[in-house]
């Protein structure tokens, strides 16, 4: 059975996964890098993507594929025809920088899908990235969470603008779907409902 949950008009269902995620080959060097451009001089232990990894990445010749951000940036020229055909999506890791994507792809809505890969479910950067993609970068197409995606984070992912969730292979996606509706009247405005409770409801003291 498919592990993919998709949200359409706030209705969740299990959906066929049309997209193949292109992986980077494993890195051979224990490279460390700074967390993006924003935080200077700070070792975070995040792996940087090497030239060898980028050149060693195998992109299937046809079909819908989601390529790593670094590969997308490096190979954009070659991919342009497929981008125009709507066959290319991009995925990024939680430590990667959205500005890098925007710099190389001024109209994000040319991409039918963006995925954010979360290595450990407890990494909450994914929520800020989703929110920024939706609000700051006005991304309107499918926004997918991939990686260590588990039931108990789905409600937050939904509120942060994700509308598709690839549940970790060893978990039951059907059951996970239930948690999208854990709370029916959240307090604060977020992506899915921008108005906070005090605007949505007539709350009287």
């Amino acid at each position, binding site marked *: 059975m498919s592990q993919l949950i998709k949200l359409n008009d706030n209705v969740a269902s299990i959906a066929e996964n049309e997209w193949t995620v292109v992986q980077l080959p494993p890195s051979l060097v224990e490279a460390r890098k700074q*967390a*993006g451009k*924003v*935080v*200077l*001089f*700070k*070792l*975070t*232990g*995040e792996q940087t993507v090497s030239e060898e990894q980028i050149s060693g990445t195998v992109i299937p010749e046809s079909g819908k594929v989601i390529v790593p951000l670094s590969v997308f940036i490096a190979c954009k020229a070659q991919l342009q025809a497929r981008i125009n055909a709507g066959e290319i999506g991009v995925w990024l890791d939680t430590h990667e920088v959205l500005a890098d994507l925007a710099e190389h792809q001024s109209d994000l809505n040319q991409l039918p899908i963006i995925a954010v890969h979360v290595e450990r*479910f*407890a*990494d*909450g*950067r994914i*929520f*800020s*990235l989703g*929110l920024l993609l939706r*609000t*700051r970068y006005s991304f309107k197409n499918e926004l997918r969470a991939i990686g260590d995606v*588990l039931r*108990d*984070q789905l*409600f*937050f*992912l*939904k*509120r*942060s603008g994700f509308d598709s969730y690839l549940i970790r292979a060893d978990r039951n996606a059907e059951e996970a779907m239930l*948690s999208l509706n*854990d*709370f*029916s*009247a*959240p*307090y*604060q*405005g*977020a992506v899915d409902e*921008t*108005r*906070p*409770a*005090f*605007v949505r*409801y007539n*709350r*009287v*003291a």
Partner: protein
Amino acid sequence: MYKYDEIDQRLVDERVAQYRDQTRRYLAGELSEEEFRPLRLQNGLYIQRLAPMLRIAVPYGMLSSKQLHKLADIAHSYDHSYGHFSTRQNLQLNWPKLEDVPDILAELASVEMHAIQTSGNCIRNITTDQFAGVAPDEIIDPRAMAEVMRQWSTFHPEFALLPRKFKIAVSGTKDDRAVVQMHDIGMEFYLDNHNKVAIKVWVGGGLGRTPILGAVIREHLEWQHALTYCEAIVRVYNLHGRRDNSYKARIKILVKALGIDEFRSQVEAEWAHLKDAPNTITEAELARVAKHFEAMPYANLPAHDASFDAAIVSNPVFANWAKRSLHAHKTSGYRAVTLSLKPHGKAPGDATSEQMHVVADLAEQYSFGELRVSHEQNLILADVKLSDLFAVWEKARVYGLATPNIGLLTDIICCPGGDFCSLANAKSIPIAQAIQMQFDNLDYLHDIGDIELNISGCMNACGHHHIGHIGILGVDKDGSEWYQVSIGGSQGNNASIGSVIGPSFSADEMPAVVQKLIDVYIKERTPEELFIDTVRRLGVAPFKAYVYAQDEVTA
């Protein structure tokens, strides 16, 4: 105080259902230990040394009589008939069963309470001054804003899994009693030049392994923007705070790494997009919430009460208690009362179910059915008539709630430490008890005067040892328990972080070490000088010399 409407109630009810299912899945093996961990933590459930520990949220320290009765009943039914009030103004149960927690939450929900975000890497309970709303030096009652912020931070989707815990304090007084400079975000409310409510925002303070006072990120923020501005701060932190090393993951490390100016410019850049977004607080919402914190229906009373004055004159024991336990009140004829949870030789901050019922009854009878928890781990009746104080004292006394040591050496702030906490390096409660017994003489305690002694069982600093005038920290040396002593720390507007006096001590030595510190103070003080001021005037050297010199003689 704030009363739930349908929206609030629905949320805590749905929370109970959610957590019940999470617990079920964990017990059924559908959730791994690692996966369940952040879920139970966000619900205040730790796995401790002896049993799980459940931390129940007491938002900004406010409780109703009804709630305290319920807490007493819960402690009785699900625990060993006592609870521990923490330095975060919350209540901790030390012995609940993991499988009982969903039922405990359901009981809590029935009195508009919960355990949401009382631990874990998320925005924690928002704390404030225990005298909010009644303090004469108050400029703005911060509780309405604290409640607005509580709601905003509850299950905030973007900030559900931060690099590390995140603590916010708010204050609205001239004399800061909420320790805003020690928080990840501190908000100080004041009236600006146009007589409008504004906020001075501090960021990056915190205790723990790297104690640091917060820096001012904004001198003037209009109150409407409190939530969006916090969102900008927490977003920068969420994206760029370290996640590879939990000791370096607090916002203070990020602020320090970037420098406050760079951090500020990143926050301001973020806020430029967020300002005036829908989370901007409306006049109507603030007014709605503030209604719940309107002044109590006080009686019109003269500033003096003859029966009270007479009791003070005729009863020295009552007078002693009154001297330490009563606090000035905005309203003529009223006082705020601190009930001490620090009887000598007991674990600081602990209250039995019986004591909780007694305090709840006292609040019901004499203080409009409300009470507060202080970060000094005592309970406060905020609105007692002068003429009722004697009756309050008599009853409190019978139940061990009237030790006249508020603000004195034995009013120790103390974390649960090695007796309960699995992170501890050393026990803290027995040290507190030993010190209390060493100084078990009220006249002497009063002579020593105002002093704060804080104890933490490890670097995490739940006992706020860095800001104790005397701070004691449990350390681990080759597997045995030792104690490092610092002096000169302080909370309040003039906050400072204590300096370590030298090599650490064994548990046995601790009462004598504190005694020696006090001896130096007594010898050196000028009339009217408090311990902290003597330390500030003389520095650490004379204290250190005496403590360690004596050591060599006896060795």
